[in-house]
Protein backbone atom coordinates (compact mmCIF):
# COMPACT_ATOMS: atom_id res chain seq x y z
CA UNK A 1 0.00 0.00 0.00
CA UNK A 2 1.20 3.45 -0.84
CA UNK A 3 1.94 5.73 2.07
CA UNK A 4 -0.82 8.31 2.54
CA UNK A 5 1.83 11.04 2.65
CA UNK A 6 2.99 10.19 -0.88
CA UNK A 7 -0.61 10.03 -2.06
CA UNK A 8 -1.45 13.45 -0.71
CA UNK A 9 1.67 14.94 -2.24
CA UNK A 10 0.71 13.41 -5.58
CA UNK A 11 -2.84 14.72 -5.33
CA UNK A 12 -1.77 18.21 -4.38
CA UNK A 13 0.96 18.19 -6.95
CA UNK A 14 2.69 21.32 -8.08
CA UNK A 15 0.38 21.81 -11.07
CA UNK A 16 -2.91 21.64 -9.22
CA UNK A 17 -1.90 24.08 -6.49
CA UNK A 18 -0.38 26.56 -8.90
CA UNK A 19 -3.63 26.52 -10.88
CA UNK A 20 -5.55 27.07 -7.64
CA UNK A 21 -3.41 30.11 -6.87
CA UNK A 22 -3.53 31.33 -10.47
CA UNK A 23 -6.49 29.78 -12.25
CA UNK A 24 -6.68 29.80 -16.04
CA UNK A 25 -9.77 31.04 -17.90
CA UNK A 26 -11.51 32.09 -14.69
CA UNK A 27 -13.65 34.95 -15.94
CA UNK A 28 -17.05 35.65 -17.35
CA UNK A 29 -17.43 35.51 -21.15
CA UNK A 30 -19.71 38.21 -22.50
CA UNK A 31 -22.19 37.10 -25.20
CA UNK A 32 -21.47 33.40 -24.72
CA UNK A 33 -23.31 30.97 -27.02
CA UNK A 34 -23.81 28.50 -24.19
CA UNK A 35 -23.53 28.66 -20.44
CA UNK A 36 -24.45 26.42 -17.55
CA UNK A 37 -24.34 26.66 -13.75
CA UNK A 38 -23.55 23.31 -12.14
CA UNK A 39 -23.23 22.56 -8.47
CA UNK A 40 -21.55 19.76 -6.60
CA UNK A 41 -24.32 18.25 -4.44
CA UNK A 42 -21.79 16.85 -1.98
CA UNK A 43 -20.40 20.21 -0.98
CA UNK A 44 -22.46 22.95 -2.61
CA UNK A 45 -19.60 24.32 -4.70
CA UNK A 46 -20.98 26.12 -7.73
CA UNK A 47 -19.29 26.61 -11.09
CA UNK A 48 -20.64 28.44 -14.13
CA UNK A 49 -19.16 27.67 -17.54
CA UNK A 50 -19.30 30.00 -20.57
CA UNK A 51 -18.69 28.79 -24.13
CA UNK A 52 -18.31 30.56 -27.48
CA UNK A 53 -18.73 28.37 -30.55
CA UNK A 54 -17.50 29.03 -34.08
CA UNK A 55 -17.64 26.54 -36.98
CA UNK A 56 -18.60 23.72 -34.61
CA UNK A 57 -15.45 24.32 -32.62
CA UNK A 58 -15.00 25.82 -29.19
CA UNK A 59 -13.67 29.27 -29.88
CA UNK A 60 -13.44 30.27 -26.24
CA UNK A 61 -14.38 28.74 -22.89
CA UNK A 62 -14.20 30.11 -19.36
CA UNK A 63 -15.63 29.55 -15.90
CA UNK A 64 -16.58 31.40 -12.74
CA UNK A 65 -17.29 30.22 -9.22
CA UNK A 66 -15.91 28.91 -5.96
CA UNK A 67 -14.26 25.60 -5.47
CA UNK A 68 -11.51 23.55 -3.95
CA UNK A 69 -8.04 23.10 -5.44
CA UNK A 70 -9.15 19.94 -7.23
CA UNK A 71 -12.17 21.51 -8.93
CA UNK A 72 -10.42 24.78 -9.83
CA UNK A 73 -7.29 22.96 -10.99
CA UNK A 74 -9.31 20.58 -13.12
CA UNK A 75 -11.38 23.45 -14.57
CA UNK A 76 -8.20 25.35 -15.49
CA UNK A 77 -6.61 22.38 -17.25
CA UNK A 78 -9.80 21.30 -18.99
CA UNK A 79 -10.71 24.74 -20.33
CA UNK A 80 -7.14 25.17 -21.64
CA UNK A 81 -7.51 21.83 -23.40
CA UNK A 82 -11.01 22.43 -24.78
CA UNK A 83 -10.17 25.64 -26.61
CA UNK A 84 -10.18 25.04 -30.37
CA UNK A 85 -11.52 21.49 -30.06
CA UNK A 86 -14.56 20.15 -31.93
CA UNK A 87 -17.70 20.48 -29.83
CA UNK A 88 -18.52 16.85 -30.66
CA UNK A 89 -15.24 15.74 -29.09
CA UNK A 90 -16.03 17.66 -25.91
CA UNK A 91 -19.60 16.38 -25.85
CA UNK A 92 -18.26 12.81 -25.79
CA UNK A 93 -15.26 13.44 -23.54
CA UNK A 94 -15.26 10.79 -20.81
CA UNK A 95 -14.46 10.99 -17.12
CA UNK A 96 -11.52 8.67 -17.72
CA UNK A 97 -10.14 10.97 -20.41
CA UNK A 98 -10.49 13.88 -18.01
CA UNK A 99 -8.59 12.04 -15.27
CA UNK A 100 -5.81 11.24 -17.77
CA UNK A 101 -5.75 14.89 -18.79
CA UNK A 102 -5.45 16.36 -15.29
CA UNK A 103 -2.91 13.67 -14.30
CA UNK A 104 -4.17 13.10 -10.76
CA UNK A 105 -6.31 10.38 -9.28
CA UNK A 106 -8.83 12.22 -7.11
CA UNK A 107 -10.29 9.05 -5.53
CA UNK A 108 -14.01 8.27 -5.29
CA UNK A 109 -15.10 11.15 -3.05
CA UNK A 110 -13.23 13.94 -4.79
CA UNK A 111 -14.14 12.67 -8.27
CA UNK A 112 -17.21 14.93 -8.06
CA UNK A 113 -14.90 17.93 -7.62
CA UNK A 114 -12.63 16.99 -10.51
CA UNK A 115 -15.53 16.37 -12.89
CA UNK A 116 -17.58 19.45 -11.98
CA UNK A 117 -16.19 21.38 -14.98
CA UNK A 118 -16.88 18.47 -17.35
CA UNK A 119 -20.48 18.13 -16.21
CA UNK A 120 -21.04 21.89 -16.51
CA UNK A 121 -19.49 22.01 -19.99
CA UNK A 122 -21.41 19.02 -21.32
CA UNK A 123 -24.70 20.31 -19.92
CA UNK A 124 -24.04 23.70 -21.52
CA UNK A 125 -23.31 22.02 -24.87
CA UNK A 126 -26.39 19.79 -24.65
CA UNK A 127 -28.51 22.95 -24.46
CA UNK A 128 -26.63 24.49 -27.40
CA UNK A 129 -28.26 23.70 -30.72
CA UNK A 130 -25.85 24.31 -33.53
Amino acid sequence: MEDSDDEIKKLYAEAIISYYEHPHNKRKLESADAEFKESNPVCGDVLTVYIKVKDKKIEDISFEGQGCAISIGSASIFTDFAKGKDIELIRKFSVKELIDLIKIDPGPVRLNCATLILRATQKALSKYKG
Partner: protein
Amino acid sequence: MYDVDKIREDFPILKQKMRGKPLVYLDSAATSQKPYYVIDAIDRFYKEYNANIHRGIYEFSERSTEEYTESKELVKKFINARSYREIIYVRNTTEAINLVALTYGNKVIEEGDHILITEMEHHSNLVPWQLLAERKGAILDYVKVDMNSYKLDLESLEKELEKKPKIVAVTHVSNVLGTVNDIKYITKRAHEVGATVLVDGAQSVPHMKVDVRDIDCDFLAFSGHKMLGPTGIGCLYGREEILEETEPLYGGGDMIMTVEKHSHTWNELPWKFEAGTSNIEGGIGLKAAIEYLNKIGMDNIKQHERELTEYALKRLDELDYVTTFGPRDLSVRAGVISFEINGVHPHDVAQIFDSEGIAIRAGHHCAMPLVTELTRIAAVSRMSFYLYNKKEEIDRAVEAIEKTYKIFKGDDLYGRLR
Protein backbone atom coordinates in the same frame (compact mmCIF):
# COMPACT_ATOMS: atom_id res chain seq x y z
CA MET B 1 -11.88 11.69 38.06
CA TYR B 2 -12.63 11.60 34.32
CA ASP B 3 -10.44 8.89 32.81
CA VAL B 4 -10.55 9.42 29.06
CA ASP B 5 -8.10 6.58 28.36
CA LYS B 6 -10.36 4.17 30.19
CA ILE B 7 -13.38 5.41 28.23
CA ARG B 8 -11.47 4.99 24.96
CA GLU B 9 -10.93 1.32 25.81
CA ASP B 10 -14.69 0.86 25.48
CA PHE B 11 -14.73 2.00 21.84
CA PRO B 12 -13.23 -0.62 19.53
CA ILE B 13 -13.08 1.66 16.49
CA LEU B 14 -10.70 4.04 18.26
CA LYS B 15 -7.99 1.36 17.98
CA GLN B 16 -8.35 1.36 14.19
CA LYS B 17 -6.01 3.02 11.77
CA MET B 18 -7.15 5.28 8.95
CA ARG B 19 -4.84 5.79 5.95
CA GLY B 20 -2.32 3.78 7.92
CA LYS B 21 -2.27 6.18 10.87
CA PRO B 22 -3.94 5.97 14.30
CA LEU B 23 -7.49 7.25 13.90
CA VAL B 24 -8.34 10.69 15.27
CA TYR B 25 -12.11 11.00 15.13
CA LEU B 26 -13.26 14.62 15.30
CA ASP B 27 -16.63 14.28 13.58
CA SER B 28 -18.99 13.28 16.39
CA ALA B 29 -21.42 16.07 15.52
CA ALA B 30 -22.09 14.07 12.34
CA THR B 31 -22.28 10.71 14.09
CA SER B 32 -20.79 9.28 17.25
CA GLN B 33 -18.75 6.11 17.63
CA LYS B 34 -20.25 3.18 19.56
CA PRO B 35 -18.99 1.44 22.71
CA TYR B 36 -18.91 -2.36 23.14
CA TYR B 37 -21.77 -1.92 25.59
CA VAL B 38 -24.09 -0.82 22.76
CA ILE B 39 -22.69 -3.14 20.07
CA ASP B 40 -23.00 -6.13 22.43
CA ALA B 41 -26.57 -5.27 23.42
CA ILE B 42 -27.64 -5.37 19.75
CA ASP B 43 -25.59 -8.50 19.15
CA ARG B 44 -27.26 -10.25 22.11
CA PHE B 45 -30.73 -9.32 20.87
CA TYR B 46 -30.19 -11.06 17.54
CA LYS B 47 -28.28 -14.01 18.99
CA GLU B 48 -30.37 -14.69 22.07
CA TYR B 49 -33.97 -13.42 21.90
CA ASN B 50 -34.89 -11.89 18.51
CA ALA B 51 -38.69 -11.86 18.21
CA ASN B 52 -41.29 -9.30 17.20
CA ILE B 53 -42.65 -7.17 20.00
CA HIS B 54 -46.17 -6.80 21.42
CA ARG B 55 -47.87 -9.73 19.74
CA GLY B 56 -46.03 -12.92 20.50
CA ILE B 57 -47.11 -14.94 23.51
CA TYR B 58 -43.81 -16.64 24.10
CA GLU B 59 -40.70 -16.03 26.13
CA PHE B 60 -38.51 -14.36 23.50
CA SER B 61 -41.26 -11.98 22.39
CA GLU B 62 -41.95 -11.08 26.00
CA ARG B 63 -38.27 -10.32 26.51
CA SER B 64 -37.89 -8.20 23.36
CA THR B 65 -41.12 -6.33 24.22
CA GLU B 66 -39.82 -5.71 27.72
CA GLU B 67 -36.43 -4.43 26.50
CA TYR B 68 -38.06 -2.16 23.93
CA THR B 69 -40.58 -0.76 26.41
CA GLU B 70 -37.86 -0.27 29.01
CA SER B 71 -35.88 1.75 26.48
CA LYS B 72 -38.80 4.20 26.29
CA GLU B 73 -38.91 4.43 30.08
CA LEU B 74 -35.20 5.17 30.08
CA VAL B 75 -35.52 7.89 27.40
CA LYS B 76 -38.38 9.36 29.43
CA LYS B 77 -36.18 9.61 32.50
CA PHE B 78 -33.18 10.83 30.48
CA ILE B 79 -35.05 13.91 29.26
CA ASN B 80 -37.38 14.09 32.28
CA ALA B 81 -40.63 13.65 30.33
CA ARG B 82 -43.80 13.08 32.34
CA SER B 83 -44.65 9.72 30.79
CA TYR B 84 -43.31 7.21 28.27
CA ARG B 85 -46.50 7.99 26.35
CA GLU B 86 -44.71 11.18 25.26
CA ILE B 87 -41.79 9.27 23.67
CA ILE B 88 -42.27 8.43 19.99
CA TYR B 89 -39.56 6.52 18.17
CA VAL B 90 -38.67 7.65 14.67
CA ARG B 91 -35.62 7.19 12.42
CA ASN B 92 -33.81 10.38 13.38
CA THR B 93 -34.17 14.09 14.21
CA THR B 94 -35.17 14.92 10.63
CA GLU B 95 -38.02 12.44 10.66
CA ALA B 96 -39.17 13.68 14.07
CA ILE B 97 -39.41 17.28 12.82
CA ASN B 98 -41.11 16.25 9.59
CA LEU B 99 -43.60 14.21 11.62
CA VAL B 100 -44.55 17.31 13.62
CA ALA B 101 -44.81 19.48 10.49
CA LEU B 102 -46.95 16.90 8.69
CA THR B 103 -49.32 16.19 11.57
CA TYR B 104 -49.55 18.98 14.13
CA GLY B 105 -48.33 21.58 11.62
CA ASN B 106 -50.89 20.60 9.00
CA LYS B 107 -53.60 20.82 11.63
CA VAL B 108 -52.86 24.24 13.10
CA ILE B 109 -51.22 26.26 10.32
CA GLU B 110 -53.52 28.19 8.00
CA GLU B 111 -52.99 30.64 5.17
CA GLY B 112 -51.22 33.81 6.31
CA ASP B 113 -50.03 32.28 9.60
CA HIS B 114 -46.43 32.82 10.72
CA ILE B 115 -43.90 30.08 11.49
CA LEU B 116 -40.71 31.24 13.20
CA ILE B 117 -37.30 29.57 12.95
CA THR B 118 -33.75 30.96 13.19
CA GLU B 119 -30.84 31.64 10.84
CA MET B 120 -28.75 28.97 12.58
CA GLU B 121 -30.99 26.00 11.80
CA HIS B 122 -29.79 22.79 10.22
CA HIS B 123 -31.71 22.01 7.02
CA SER B 124 -33.66 19.40 9.00
CA ASN B 125 -35.30 22.16 11.04
CA LEU B 126 -35.72 24.46 8.04
CA VAL B 127 -36.94 22.55 4.97
CA PRO B 128 -39.91 20.83 6.72
CA TRP B 129 -41.18 24.31 7.70
CA GLN B 130 -40.57 25.69 4.20
CA LEU B 131 -42.66 22.82 2.85
CA LEU B 132 -45.40 23.42 5.43
CA ALA B 133 -45.44 27.14 4.60
CA GLU B 134 -45.70 26.31 0.88
CA ARG B 135 -48.55 23.84 1.47
CA LYS B 136 -50.57 26.27 3.52
CA GLY B 137 -49.60 29.67 2.16
CA ALA B 138 -48.04 30.50 5.52
CA ILE B 139 -45.07 32.81 6.13
CA LEU B 140 -41.69 31.56 7.35
CA ASP B 141 -39.76 34.10 9.45
CA TYR B 142 -36.19 33.98 10.80
CA VAL B 143 -34.60 35.15 14.03
CA LYS B 144 -31.27 36.74 13.07
CA VAL B 145 -27.87 35.58 14.27
CA ASP B 146 -25.59 38.30 15.62
CA MET B 147 -22.40 37.67 13.64
CA ASN B 148 -20.23 39.29 16.31
CA SER B 149 -21.31 37.21 19.27
CA TYR B 150 -22.56 34.26 17.17
CA LYS B 151 -25.66 34.19 19.36
CA LEU B 152 -29.30 34.67 18.43
CA ASP B 153 -30.20 38.34 18.23
CA LEU B 154 -32.79 38.76 21.00
CA GLU B 155 -34.10 42.03 19.57
CA SER B 156 -34.80 40.22 16.33
CA LEU B 157 -36.57 37.49 18.34
CA GLU B 158 -38.85 40.08 19.95
CA LYS B 159 -39.58 41.70 16.60
CA GLU B 160 -40.54 38.37 15.03
CA LEU B 161 -42.63 37.30 18.03
CA GLU B 162 -44.79 40.39 17.50
CA LYS B 163 -46.08 38.64 14.39
CA LYS B 164 -47.62 36.02 16.72
CA PRO B 165 -46.17 32.87 15.13
CA LYS B 166 -48.16 29.70 15.77
CA ILE B 167 -45.05 27.53 15.75
CA VAL B 168 -41.53 28.43 16.90
CA ALA B 169 -38.86 25.86 15.93
CA VAL B 170 -35.33 26.44 17.19
CA THR B 171 -32.14 24.50 17.61
CA HIS B 172 -30.76 24.04 21.10
CA VAL B 173 -27.14 23.90 19.89
CA SER B 174 -25.86 25.07 16.50
CA ASN B 175 -24.07 22.30 14.58
CA VAL B 176 -21.87 24.92 12.89
CA LEU B 177 -21.19 27.55 15.57
CA GLY B 178 -21.51 25.42 18.70
CA THR B 179 -23.71 28.16 20.17
CA VAL B 180 -25.92 26.91 23.03
CA ASN B 181 -29.12 28.91 22.79
CA ASP B 182 -30.97 30.09 25.90
CA ILE B 183 -33.77 27.72 25.06
CA LYS B 184 -35.65 28.15 28.31
CA TYR B 185 -35.96 31.87 27.72
CA ILE B 186 -36.96 31.46 24.06
CA THR B 187 -39.62 28.90 24.98
CA LYS B 188 -40.99 31.19 27.69
CA ARG B 189 -41.23 34.19 25.36
CA ALA B 190 -42.74 32.07 22.55
CA HIS B 191 -45.37 30.63 24.90
CA GLU B 192 -46.26 34.15 26.04
CA VAL B 193 -47.33 34.99 22.49
CA GLY B 194 -49.23 31.69 22.18
CA ALA B 195 -46.76 29.72 20.04
CA THR B 196 -46.05 26.00 20.25
CA VAL B 197 -42.31 25.35 20.56
CA LEU B 198 -40.24 22.63 18.93
CA VAL B 199 -36.61 22.25 20.01
CA ASP B 200 -34.05 20.54 17.76
CA GLY B 201 -31.97 18.64 20.30
CA ALA B 202 -29.74 16.76 17.84
CA GLN B 203 -26.59 18.52 19.09
CA SER B 204 -27.61 19.03 22.72
CA VAL B 205 -29.19 15.81 24.02
CA PRO B 206 -25.99 13.75 23.38
CA HIS B 207 -23.76 16.28 25.16
CA MET B 208 -25.58 17.82 28.13
CA LYS B 209 -28.49 17.28 30.49
CA VAL B 210 -31.69 18.33 28.69
CA ASP B 211 -34.82 18.48 30.84
CA VAL B 212 -38.02 18.99 28.84
CA ARG B 213 -39.97 20.08 31.91
CA ASP B 214 -37.36 22.63 32.82
CA ILE B 215 -37.04 24.13 29.33
CA ASP B 216 -40.81 23.65 28.95
CA CYS B 217 -40.76 22.89 25.19
CA ASP B 218 -43.72 21.22 23.50
CA PHE B 219 -41.66 19.04 21.17
CA LEU B 220 -38.05 17.86 21.34
CA ALA B 221 -36.34 15.97 18.50
CA PHE B 222 -33.06 14.04 18.66
CA SER B 223 -31.14 11.16 17.06
CA GLY B 224 -29.78 7.99 18.66
CA HIS B 225 -26.73 7.70 16.41
CA LYS B 226 -25.24 10.98 17.66
CA MET B 227 -25.38 9.72 21.27
CA LEU B 228 -23.57 6.36 21.00
CA GLY B 229 -26.65 4.51 19.70
CA PRO B 230 -27.19 2.88 16.32
CA THR B 231 -28.43 4.67 13.20
CA GLY B 232 -32.10 4.47 12.33
CA ILE B 233 -33.46 5.27 15.80
CA GLY B 234 -34.40 8.75 16.91
CA CYS B 235 -36.92 10.26 19.21
CA LEU B 236 -39.71 12.76 19.17
CA TYR B 237 -40.84 13.95 22.58
CA GLY B 238 -44.24 15.59 22.49
CA ARG B 239 -46.36 17.01 25.26
CA GLU B 240 -49.09 14.43 25.95
CA GLU B 241 -52.04 16.83 25.59
CA ILE B 242 -50.82 17.86 22.15
CA LEU B 243 -50.12 14.32 20.97
CA GLU B 244 -53.58 13.19 22.12
CA GLU B 245 -55.16 15.87 19.94
CA THR B 246 -52.99 15.10 16.90
CA GLU B 247 -53.85 12.60 14.17
CA PRO B 248 -51.23 9.98 13.28
CA LEU B 249 -49.40 10.11 9.93
CA TYR B 250 -49.13 6.42 9.09
CA GLY B 251 -51.74 3.70 9.39
CA GLY B 252 -51.02 0.01 9.83
CA GLY B 253 -50.29 -2.59 12.44
CA ASP B 254 -49.51 -1.59 16.02
CA MET B 255 -51.02 1.89 15.72
CA ILE B 256 -54.60 0.66 15.97
CA MET B 257 -56.77 -0.65 18.81
CA THR B 258 -59.50 -2.21 16.66
CA VAL B 259 -60.13 -2.39 12.91
CA GLU B 260 -63.43 -3.01 11.15
CA LYS B 261 -64.07 -2.99 7.41
CA HIS B 262 -64.71 0.73 7.24
CA SER B 263 -63.43 2.08 10.52
CA HIS B 264 -60.72 1.76 13.16
CA THR B 265 -59.78 3.16 16.51
CA TRP B 266 -56.30 4.36 17.34
CA ASN B 267 -54.00 2.74 19.81
CA GLU B 268 -52.79 4.49 22.96
CA LEU B 269 -49.82 6.85 22.91
CA PRO B 270 -47.06 6.50 21.91
CA TRP B 271 -47.94 3.51 19.70
CA LYS B 272 -50.49 5.58 17.78
CA PHE B 273 -47.57 7.19 15.95
CA GLU B 274 -45.57 3.99 15.38
CA ALA B 275 -47.21 1.96 12.61
CA GLY B 276 -45.67 -1.37 11.61
CA THR B 277 -42.90 -3.39 13.20
CA SER B 278 -40.67 -1.09 15.21
CA ASN B 279 -36.91 -0.68 14.94
CA ILE B 280 -36.45 -3.08 17.84
CA GLU B 281 -32.65 -3.32 17.67
CA GLY B 282 -32.61 0.50 17.52
CA GLY B 283 -34.64 0.79 20.71
CA ILE B 284 -32.45 -1.77 22.46
CA GLY B 285 -29.28 -0.05 21.21
CA LEU B 286 -30.52 3.35 22.34
CA LYS B 287 -31.31 1.96 25.78
CA ALA B 288 -27.75 0.66 26.09
CA ALA B 289 -26.38 4.00 24.87
CA ILE B 290 -28.28 5.94 27.52
CA GLU B 291 -27.21 3.49 30.22
CA TYR B 292 -23.59 4.04 29.16
CA LEU B 293 -23.96 7.84 29.09
CA ASN B 294 -25.63 7.79 32.52
CA LYS B 295 -22.76 5.74 33.91
CA ILE B 296 -20.23 8.38 32.77
CA GLY B 297 -22.58 11.23 33.74
CA MET B 298 -23.83 13.97 31.42
CA ASP B 299 -22.33 16.75 33.53
CA ASN B 300 -18.91 15.05 33.37
CA ILE B 301 -19.20 14.71 29.60
CA LYS B 302 -20.14 18.37 29.26
CA GLN B 303 -17.20 19.43 31.41
CA HIS B 304 -14.77 17.23 29.46
CA GLU B 305 -15.94 18.67 26.12
CA ARG B 306 -15.65 22.17 27.51
CA GLU B 307 -12.02 21.59 28.46
CA LEU B 308 -11.30 20.19 24.99
CA THR B 309 -12.98 23.17 23.33
CA GLU B 310 -11.03 25.63 25.46
CA TYR B 311 -7.75 23.86 24.66
CA ALA B 312 -8.52 23.65 20.93
CA LEU B 313 -9.44 27.34 20.69
CA LYS B 314 -6.21 28.24 22.47
CA ARG B 315 -4.13 26.12 20.08
CA LEU B 316 -5.94 27.46 16.99
CA ASP B 317 -5.48 31.05 18.18
CA GLU B 318 -1.71 30.50 18.00
CA LEU B 319 -1.99 30.20 14.20
CA ASP B 320 -2.51 33.61 12.62
CA TYR B 321 -3.72 32.08 9.33
CA VAL B 322 -6.61 30.27 11.01
CA THR B 323 -10.02 31.85 11.66
CA THR B 324 -12.47 30.20 14.04
CA PHE B 325 -16.20 30.82 14.28
CA GLY B 326 -18.53 30.59 17.26
CA PRO B 327 -18.97 32.18 20.70
CA ARG B 328 -15.89 32.77 22.86
CA ASP B 329 -17.96 32.55 26.04
CA LEU B 330 -17.50 28.86 26.89
CA SER B 331 -20.60 28.82 29.09
CA VAL B 332 -22.70 29.08 25.90
CA ARG B 333 -20.46 26.98 23.67
CA ALA B 334 -20.61 23.28 22.87
CA GLY B 335 -17.74 21.16 21.54
CA VAL B 336 -17.99 22.24 17.92
CA ILE B 337 -15.34 24.38 16.20
CA SER B 338 -15.79 25.54 12.62
CA PHE B 339 -12.63 27.03 11.18
CA GLU B 340 -11.00 28.32 8.05
CA ILE B 341 -7.38 28.18 6.92
CA ASN B 342 -6.85 31.37 4.95
CA GLY B 343 -6.71 30.71 1.24
CA VAL B 344 -7.35 26.98 1.44
CA HIS B 345 -10.69 25.47 0.50
CA PRO B 346 -12.25 23.36 3.30
CA HIS B 347 -12.41 20.24 1.11
CA ASP B 348 -8.71 20.38 0.56
CA VAL B 349 -8.28 20.82 4.32
CA ALA B 350 -10.40 17.73 5.03
CA GLN B 351 -8.52 15.71 2.45
CA ILE B 352 -5.12 16.53 3.95
CA PHE B 353 -6.51 15.76 7.43
CA ASP B 354 -7.67 12.41 6.02
CA SER B 355 -4.14 11.63 4.85
CA GLU B 356 -3.09 12.15 8.48
CA GLY B 357 -5.74 9.74 9.76
CA ILE B 358 -7.94 12.56 11.08
CA ALA B 359 -11.68 12.65 10.39
CA ILE B 360 -13.21 16.13 10.23
CA ARG B 361 -16.09 17.57 8.23
CA ALA B 362 -15.96 20.16 5.45
CA GLY B 363 -18.73 21.91 3.59
CA HIS B 364 -21.94 23.72 4.38
CA HIS B 365 -22.85 21.29 7.20
CA CYS B 366 -26.48 21.22 6.05
CA ALA B 367 -26.84 24.83 7.15
CA MET B 368 -26.38 26.64 3.84
CA PRO B 369 -28.09 29.93 4.81
CA LEU B 370 -25.84 30.29 7.88
CA VAL B 371 -22.56 29.17 6.33
CA THR B 372 -23.15 31.46 3.35
CA GLU B 373 -23.33 34.32 5.88
CA LEU B 374 -20.15 33.19 7.63
CA THR B 375 -17.90 32.96 4.63
CA ARG B 376 -17.92 33.91 1.00
CA ILE B 377 -17.19 30.38 -0.20
CA ALA B 378 -20.14 28.89 1.72
CA ALA B 379 -18.01 26.16 3.23
CA VAL B 380 -16.04 25.73 6.45
CA SER B 381 -14.05 22.95 8.10
CA ARG B 382 -15.38 21.63 11.38
CA MET B 383 -14.00 19.59 14.24
CA SER B 384 -16.36 18.33 16.92
CA PHE B 385 -15.67 16.55 20.18
CA TYR B 386 -17.23 13.88 22.35
CA LEU B 387 -16.57 12.03 25.56
CA TYR B 388 -13.77 9.91 24.03
CA ASN B 389 -11.62 12.69 22.54
CA LYS B 390 -8.37 13.83 24.14
CA LYS B 391 -6.04 16.80 23.97
CA GLU B 392 -3.35 14.83 22.11
CA GLU B 393 -5.84 14.46 19.25
CA ILE B 394 -6.25 18.22 19.07
CA ASP B 395 -2.46 18.48 18.85
CA ARG B 396 -2.54 16.09 15.88
CA ALA B 397 -5.22 18.28 14.27
CA VAL B 398 -3.07 21.38 14.75
CA GLU B 399 -0.13 19.57 13.11
CA ALA B 400 -2.41 18.71 10.18
CA ILE B 401 -3.39 22.37 9.84
CA GLU B 402 0.29 23.31 9.74
CA LYS B 403 0.92 20.68 7.08
CA THR B 404 -2.03 21.92 5.03
CA TYR B 405 -0.79 25.48 5.15
CA LYS B 406 2.68 24.35 4.14
CA ILE B 407 1.38 22.40 1.14
CA PHE B 408 -0.66 25.36 -0.06
CA LYS B 409 1.34 28.35 1.08
CA GLY B 410 4.68 26.97 2.13
CA ASP B 411 8.09 28.08 0.88
CA ASP B 412 8.39 25.13 -1.45
CA LEU B 413 5.24 26.24 -3.26
CA TYR B 414 6.76 29.56 -4.16
CA GLY B 415 9.93 27.71 -5.06
CA ARG B 416 7.92 25.58 -7.45
CA LEU B 417 6.10 28.53 -8.96
CA ARG B 418 9.21 30.46 -9.84
